[in-house]
Every structure is written in structure tokens, then in C-alpha cells.
């Protein structure tokens, strides 16, 4: 008797949940897991604000967003992803900033049939052999900005670079990316500790190395520390880096030490594209600060999803995927298209840190790479 009623209850529950799924209609539920507290919170907040700004401007009532904070911890990101997939029943996931968190969440999510749109992390594993039809990256593959920096170093005539990055997968990708395009000699190559805050020893080695340029990838607080200490050391070898260490959220903390430094990016606020002008103006009006690279990526991620919603129902995975792959939205980067591994094929620019009034920011001074395809695309087959 008890068994019977249990079976009956289970059957009813199944019917109920099936009914719920059908009742979804044209609605799309997006689950955003990003870093909103702790040390790296600035990046996640920018992605979230950019995303929500695009959603607000579009005014599409069928888009529902659930936001959760991963605290930059892989185990929490995995728990949140399970919750979003199983109890929130989201259709699309997005938001993760860090590659190690993305590696913990994305393969499991796509295996369970959820779309994942990455607004930041682009680990090489997910671009090459581990690519997935439901995984799209709207920002870049991790190596790209470093490849652009290497190309810039060639253009600037540097032939003896000193390179350094933290000793973790994204740091190794960074130096690999730089060396992939850079054609000169290496005066030195250093892996620093992840989270290291004092670079006196490394700067002394740079001074003694006789290099003509320094390339560094030190995201977040590490980059702030390095630049301030570098400026105080009296070493005047020119510095090149990816945009991550010269981002709007960080520059004010670096101050004068960053002035004049060249860095590479796929976006800047002065990029002459109508969609970008709208974005920069609306972001400042809404949040009272200048948008960052991460905000632009969050904004594009939302617009990509909105463009696909206009063309297909998310329940029809094939049609929705095709609509995403077409990427017919007005990107703040201008031309935007996906390559065969659903990572962007896009232009990269060289920026210089300047001071506008009291605010430190970037301005584009030239092109670095055009229609650049990441190095792992060829390894991807669905």
C-alpha cells in the first residue's frame, strides 16, 4: 500500500515537472555564477553589471536571471551549478570569471544539456579537444591577449624580452601565448608564486638582465603590486602586458605608476563603434563609473543570448545553438563572429594608459592582431 502511494506520488511529481517544463514557452532562465565577494569581487561585479545593463536596455520580459556568488571557490561554484541545474532548472549558464572554476563547472553543465556562455574564462582545454557544442566563449581564449602582446612587441621592435607570470595554468598559458607570436630573444623567464605581493627580487633580476622590454601577466592585486614597485625601483625598461592588469577597476589603485604603459585588449571604451558608445554612456549613467573590459564582456554575453532568443526557442537546442553561433548582435567590439570552436574570431588592439582629468584610463593607439583565431581551434571537433 505504502509502496503504491509512493509510486503514485513519484508519477505525479514527474507529470508536474514535465508540465512545468512545457509551460516555459519562450522564457529563458539564465543562471549566473560569478565572484561577488572576497578579493576578486570587482571582476564579477563588472560582469554582472554589464550583463544586467544589457538585459535592462533590451527590456525583454522573457529573460530571467538568477545570480549567485561563487566566492572564487571551485567547490562553491560546483554546488551552485548543481542547484541551478537541478532546482532552479536554468536553460543557460554564464558568469564564471576564473579558469579553474570554469573547468570545475562547464564540462558538467554542458554534459547535462545546459548552454554555457563564458563572459571571461577561456581555458585552452575547453577551446581544443574538450570543446562542446553547447559551450560558447564570448570573451576570448586565455592565450589571445598575450599573443596580441607578443605581436605588439615585434611591431615595437623589441628583441630581448624579460617575461614573468604566476606559476599556475593561466600563467603558463600566458607565457606560452606571448612566445607563440613574439619573435625575439628572451632575457629571462620567471614563474612567480600565485598571490605573491612582493616583487623586489624579480625586479632586481629584470634590472640585471639587460632586457629591452618586460612582459608580465599578473592579474588583480599582483599586478598592482608589481607596477607600483617597478615604478619605485628606478628601472625604466618599457613594460607590456595584457589588459587584465590595466583594467578600469585596477588603474585607480596603481595610479601614476601605470601611465604610458602599453597593453593589449579586444575592447576599449573609445572603440569607435555605435553599440560601444551606447554601452559606455548607459553604463556610466546606470552605475556612476567607467565600464571595464569585464563589463563589456558581460554586456556582450547578454546581448548574444537576447539575439538568439529572438530567433529560436531555447527548448529546441539545435535551433538555439545555431542562433547563438550566428552571433547576430551589435557587439561593443564591432564585428563579432565565432570560429569553428565557438570562440571569438576578432581584432586585438594596443592601448596606452592615460590620465583623463583625475581618472586613469586607456586609449587605443593601434591594432595588434586582426581576425585572430585561437591556436586550439583546429583541435576541436564536435
Amino acid at each position, binding site marked *: 500500500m505504502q509502496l503504491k502511494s509512493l509510486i503514485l506520488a513519484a508519477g505525479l511529481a514527474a507529470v508536474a515537472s514535465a508540465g512545468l517544463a512545457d509551460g516555459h514557452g519562450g522564457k529563458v532562465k539564465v543562471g549566473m555564477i560569478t565572484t561577488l565577494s*572576497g578579493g576578486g569581487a570587482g571582476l564579477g561585479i563588472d560582469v554582472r553589471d554589464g550583463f544586467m545593463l544589457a538585459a535592462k536596455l533590451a527590456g525583454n520580459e522573457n529573460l530571467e536571471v538568477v545570480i549567485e556568488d561563487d566566492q572564487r571557490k571551485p567547490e562553491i561554484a560546483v554546488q551552485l551549478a548543481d542547484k541551478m541545474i537541478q532546482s532552479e532548472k536554468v536553460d543557460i549558464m554564464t558568469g564564471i570569471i576564473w579558469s579553474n572554476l570554469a573547468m570545475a563547472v562547464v564540462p558538467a553543465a554542458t554534459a547535462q544539456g545546459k548552454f554555457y556562455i563564458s563572459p571571461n574564462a577561456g581555458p585552452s582545454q575547453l577551446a581544443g579537444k574538450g570543446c562542446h557544442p553547447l559551450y560558447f566563449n564570448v570573451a576570448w581564449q586565455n592565450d589571445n591577449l598575450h599573443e596580441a602582446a607578443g605581436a605588439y612587441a615585434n611591431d615595437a621592435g623589441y628583441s630581448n624580452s624579460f617575461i614573468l607570470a604566476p606559476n599556475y595554468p593561466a600563467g603558463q598559458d600566458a607565457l606560452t601565448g606571448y612566445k607563440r607570436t613574439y619573435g625575439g630573444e628572451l632575457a629571462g623567464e620567471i614563474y612567480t608564486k600565485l598571490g605573491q605581493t612582493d616583487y623586489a*627580487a624579480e625586479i*632586481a633580476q629584470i634590472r640585471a638582465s639587460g632586457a629591452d622590454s618586460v612582459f608580465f601577466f599578473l592579474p588583480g592585486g599582483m599586478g598592482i603590486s608589481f607596477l607600483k614597485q617597478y615604478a619605485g625601483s628606478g628601472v625604466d625598461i618599457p613594460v607590456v602586458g595584457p589588459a587584465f592588469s590595466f583594467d578600469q577597476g585596477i588603474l585607480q589603485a596603481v595610479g601614476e605608476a601605470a601611465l604610458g604603459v602599453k597593453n593589449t585588449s579586444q575592447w576599449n571604451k573609445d572603440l569607435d563603434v555605435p553599440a560601444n558608445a551606447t554601452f559606455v554612456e548607459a553604463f556610466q549613467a546606470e552605475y556612476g563609473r567607467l565600464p571595464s573590459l569585464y563589463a563589456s564582456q558581460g554586456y556582450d554575453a547578454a546581448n548574444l543570448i537576447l539575439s538568439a532568443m529572438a530567433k529560436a526557442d531555447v527548448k529546441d537546442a539545435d535551433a538555439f545553438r545555431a542562433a547563438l553561433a550566428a552571433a547576430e548582435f551589435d557587439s561593443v567590439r564591432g564585428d563579432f563572429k565565432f570560429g569553428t570552436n565557438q570562440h571569438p574570431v576578432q581584432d586585438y588592439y594596443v592601448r596606452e594608459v592615460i590620465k583623463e582629468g583625475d581618472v586613469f584610463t586607456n586609449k587605443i593607439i593601434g591594432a595588434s592582431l586582426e581576425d585572430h583565431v585561437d591556436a586550439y581551434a583546429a583541435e576541436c571537433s564536435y
Partner: protein
Amino acid sequence: MSTLLLIEQVLNGLQFGVMLFLMAAGLTLIFGVMGLINLAHGSLYMVGAFAAAAVAGATGSFLLALIASLAAAAAAGAIIELVVIRRLYDRDHLDQVLATFALILIFSEGTRWIFGSFPLFLDIPAALAGPVTLPGGIQYPAYRLLIIGIGLVIALGLFQLIARTRIGIQIRAGESDREMIAALGVDISRLYTIVFALGAALAGLAGALVGALQSVQVGMGEPVLILAFVVIVIGGIGSIKGALVGALLVGMTDTLGKVLLPGLFGAFMEPAAATAVGSSLASMAIYILMAAVLLFRPTGLYGSA
């Protein structure tokens, strides 16, 4: 590697060690006198840095910023001692760890709530920006020399305080027998608050001094806290002298390890592999040092059994 470069790196190690001493001194005093494991010590370091950044931003004076960091961290230390820590002295270490860990979370989110999620700006004063030339032609940042100087002066001051003053006598007495000095009429709870605030102030000063070289952001205290614990374990828990020797050992090992080890492996390995192996081993060097010290002296270099 040239001798000049080596001397510069020794100075870097000294500066790093002196900074660690400021953190470790408070931690070891608090543990020695009160038997308390204070995980929130890193948060007091952060409070000092944020107070300095806020005051420097408002007034433009670095000296005022340093004073503010001392005052803010001492005040924060005194408040948490009176409100939370006081209830923990009689509990076991696990309860203390749990409660002070909760304090870390409260301080971190509270700071984020007040100052926002983006790193703050705190720069070294213009007079100390840039390098000075030392005898022998070594170019060394003036500000780092100042940190070495301040650290050594404070170390000397602490030794004088503990060895020569009435409060120092009470602290030493409290370390060896806290019931007895209470029975002798010393106001033990006031002594605890003073020691806690003193330790907090030193951590706050370290935060402000280092904040000018690094980034002032939420969570900046925790990596330093781990190193400070390594220092007091090496030096012997409760010993100021041990904290100084331990801090200098850790500073030197860490700095020279990461400079020399990759080169050492480069002698018989390919450059890329040598860099990777050398830097991995360099990150472990201080923990290997700690293990080695504990192997021969289980209570640390100057610890009493």
C-alpha cells in the same frame, strides 16, 4: 650572479623579514601571554592598510596615514578583545580558531561594504619615491630602506618595552603564571586588552607600510597571516626574539630561494624546466625550513617546552 645583485637580494630578504616581524610579533605576544590563537590578525593588518589609504586619500599626508593605521588597528583590536576575544581565553584552541575565523569573514565583508570591491590607492610619499644609490653602486628603493629602518627600530623598542618597563614585567609574568600575577593585584583583563591592542597596532602599521607598495584590497591579510604563523612556529611560540629571528630566516629563505634555485637547476636542466622546477621548489622552501627546524627543535628556535 653578480655580487651587487646578491647584496640587493639580501636587502630584499631583510625588508621582507622585517615586515613579517611586525605581523609575527603581535601574533606571538598574544599567543604567549593569553594562550590565544588569533586568526583575525590578518584582518587587523587589512584594517591598518584601509585606514591609511582612506586618510592618505583625504589629507594627502603619509605620516597622518601611518598614525591612522596604528590608531585604527589598535582600536579595532581593543574592541574585538573586549567584545569577542575575552570570552575565548578559557575555551580550547578549536573554539578560538572558529571564532576568530568568523571575525575574518566579518572584517572582510564589512570592509567591502564600506570601501567597495575595488582595490584602493595608497602611494609612497613623493620624497621617498625612486631609488637611492648605496655604497658600491647599488640602486635600492628608498622606501624599502625606510621599512627596514622602521622595522628594526620597532624591534628594538619592543625588546626595551618587554625587558625594561613595568608593563613588560607584567607581560613576562603573565606568560609564566597568569593566576599568580592576578593574585598579586595586577589587573589582568586590562593587561590583556593592552597587549592585544599593541599586537593589533603593529599589524596595522605593517599593513599600511606594505599597502603603499602593494594593493590595498579585501583579503590582503590572509596570505601574510600564514607566513606569520610559519615565523612564530620557527621562532618558538611566545618569544619576541624568536619572532625576529624566524622572520628574518623566512624572509631570506623565501627571497634568496626564488632567486637562486631556478639558476641552480639551470646548471643541469633545460631553461624552461629549470624555471618551473626551481620556482615550485622556491615556493616550498620556507615550509621545508619550518619542517627542518621542528625536526631538530620541536618547540621552535627559542620556544620553551
